[in-house]
């Protein structure tokens, strides 16, 4: 039976949904930590520059491929780059799906901490490190991973309009309201201005440090959802009269606006409630890891909020509610990407959903049980995203950059035309950034993360583990290329 084609009902429904992809836990926990570790204001300048050199061009590309081809990653890349490169689309889709396996676990953590904040356990806990360790070393994360996957499945089951669009129409504005309430409370704390000043003060020496620029580029690559293939998937459901350039810019700027708001909130809170020690903690203490900042350091700070246990409970609850909303809106896009891939191959949508969610739950269990496994997957597929960005750029070059710009980007529905600058950025600057990032992260693995065993494929943060896992996945998809093309592009009755 032919699937009923669904489209986002309005521009705003689609933009909120795409912002839902981009805004995730990384905006809240990773951004502030990286800003602190890279000299505060010195980081913000390259971070803004790379928004225009990495995020916006790739988001435009994804919007255009999805809307132009109406296929997910495999069909989209095959149509743009040629059928023999369909495996690249499969790799892009696999990277996002592999991230979904452990991102569902992360969403589960947020739900668990939200429940603890609601019940008041969080603000009455004496030892937050012990609380976190006892949780992550138990079987509980599997239960919350299941809840996260089930919630995601429920949204996708309801379809594009009643599920994805409606959920994002509620959750994204709610998230913004929550962040605004938190920001208002944070900036009105005594001593908050010190934090805001640190956040915006650049240091010329740090600004000239290439590592700060690479950290800013990495943050854009991981945080905005550009190059993940997720926006490409949602763009398949864009109406024909939908614009690309303005929508892509709104997505990227909306995402970074949320990061900026979260940064102001966290820096104000840290400097006001933990003067002197707070920033050291953010740079090298428990807050120096993503999970440490959100699940150990910030809950400690909530306990110091003036106003008593009710106020502390209220703010910790809305913080984890916001974090959960951010995580769920991103998780559903990852589930939709995988479902769309199988639907494109001819599988009925509900069957595809059950298959993806069962698989997602099972493959997420190792990350729920072992932080080492979780960290390895985050390392391998986090760097894998940069290859995904490179493959999207390659597909456009193969298609003909100027032809792609004129037909797919500036085609029907475009409100503003993208100029020739786009050809240079997507054909030259994006591939250059991909190469620089991969070399940089591999050099860090060799010189800093794992100097002895960087080649060992069984070490957590090694070059070997990336090469092995990427290599296996690419080899399988190259072998299956013809079958994937046949099933995606040449099904019976479908062009």
């Amino acid at each position, binding site marked *: 039976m032919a699937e009923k*084609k669904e*489209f986002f009902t309005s*521009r705003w429904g689609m*933009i909120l949904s795409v912002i839902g992809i981009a805004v995730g836990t990384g905006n809240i926990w990773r951004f502030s930590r990286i800003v602190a570790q890279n000299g505060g*204001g010195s980081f*913000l*300048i390259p971070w*803004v520059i790379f*928004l225009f050199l990495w995020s916006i061009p790739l988001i435009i590309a994804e919007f255009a491929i999805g809307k132009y081809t109406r296929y997910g990653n495999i069909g989209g890349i095959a149509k743009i780059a040629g059928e023999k490169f369909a495996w690249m689309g499969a790799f892009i889709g696999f990277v996002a799906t592999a991230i979904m396996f452990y991102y569902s676990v992360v969403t589960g953590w947020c739900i668990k901490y939200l429940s603890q904040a609601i019940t008041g356990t969080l603000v009455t806990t004496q030892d937050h490190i012990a609380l976190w360790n006892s949780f992550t070393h138990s079987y509980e994360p599997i239960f919350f991973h299941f809840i996260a996957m089930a919630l995601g499945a429920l949204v996708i089951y309801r379809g594009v309009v009643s599920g994805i669009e409606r959920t994002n129409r509620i959750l994204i504005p709610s998230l913004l309201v929550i962040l605004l309430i938190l920001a208002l409370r944070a900036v009105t704390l005594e001593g908050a201005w010190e934090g805001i*000043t640190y956040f*915006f*003060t*650049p240091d010329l020496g740090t600004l000239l440090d290439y590592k700060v620029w690479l950290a800013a580029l990495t943050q854009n690559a991981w945080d905005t959802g550009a190059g993940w293939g997720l926006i490409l998937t949602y763009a398949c459901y864009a*109406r*024909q*009269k939908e*614009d690309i350039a*303005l*929508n892509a*810019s*709104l997505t990227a*700027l*909306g995402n*970074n*606006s949320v990061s*900026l708001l979260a940064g102001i909130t966290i820096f104000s809170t840290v400097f006001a409630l933990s003067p002197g020690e707070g920033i050291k903690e953010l740079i090298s203490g428990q807050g120096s890891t993503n999970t440490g900042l959100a699940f150990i350091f910030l809950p400690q700070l909530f306990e110091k909020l003036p106003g008593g246990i009710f106020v502390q409970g209220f703010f910790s609850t809305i913080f984890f509610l916001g974090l959960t909303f951010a995580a769920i809106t991103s998780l559903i896009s990852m589930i939709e990407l995988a479902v769309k891939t199988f639907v494109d191959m001819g599988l009925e949508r509900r069957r595809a959903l059950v298959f993806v969610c069962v698989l997602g739950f099972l493959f997420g269990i190792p990350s729920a049980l072992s932080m080492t496994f979780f960290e390895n997957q985050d390392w391998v597929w986090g760097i894998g995203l940069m290859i995904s960005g490179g493959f999207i750029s390659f597909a456009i070059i193969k298609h003909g950059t100027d032809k792609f710009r004129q037909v797919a980007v500036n085609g029907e529905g475009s*409100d*503003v035309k993208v100029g020739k600058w786009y050809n240079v950025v997507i054909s030259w600057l994006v591939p250059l950034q991909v190469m620089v990032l991969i070399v940089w992260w591999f050099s860090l693995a060799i010189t800093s993360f794992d100097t002895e065993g960087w080649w060992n494929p069984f070490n957590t943060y090694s070059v070997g583990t990336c090469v092995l896992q990427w290599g296996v996945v690419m080899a399988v998809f190259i072998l299956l290329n013809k079958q994937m093309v046949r099933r995606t592009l040449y099904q019976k009755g479908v062009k």
Partner: protein
Amino acid sequence: MELRTLLTMIFTVGMVWGGFLYILLKALKKEREKESIPERPSS
């Protein structure tokens, strides 16, 4: 407040929040223009 702090604040907030608002207003204007054009039936 130091000048460099103020300049970074203007640059960052201006580019990110200012840019977002500018594009949002532009999109709103274009959307109003499009409202009068009926959607082409999709295949």
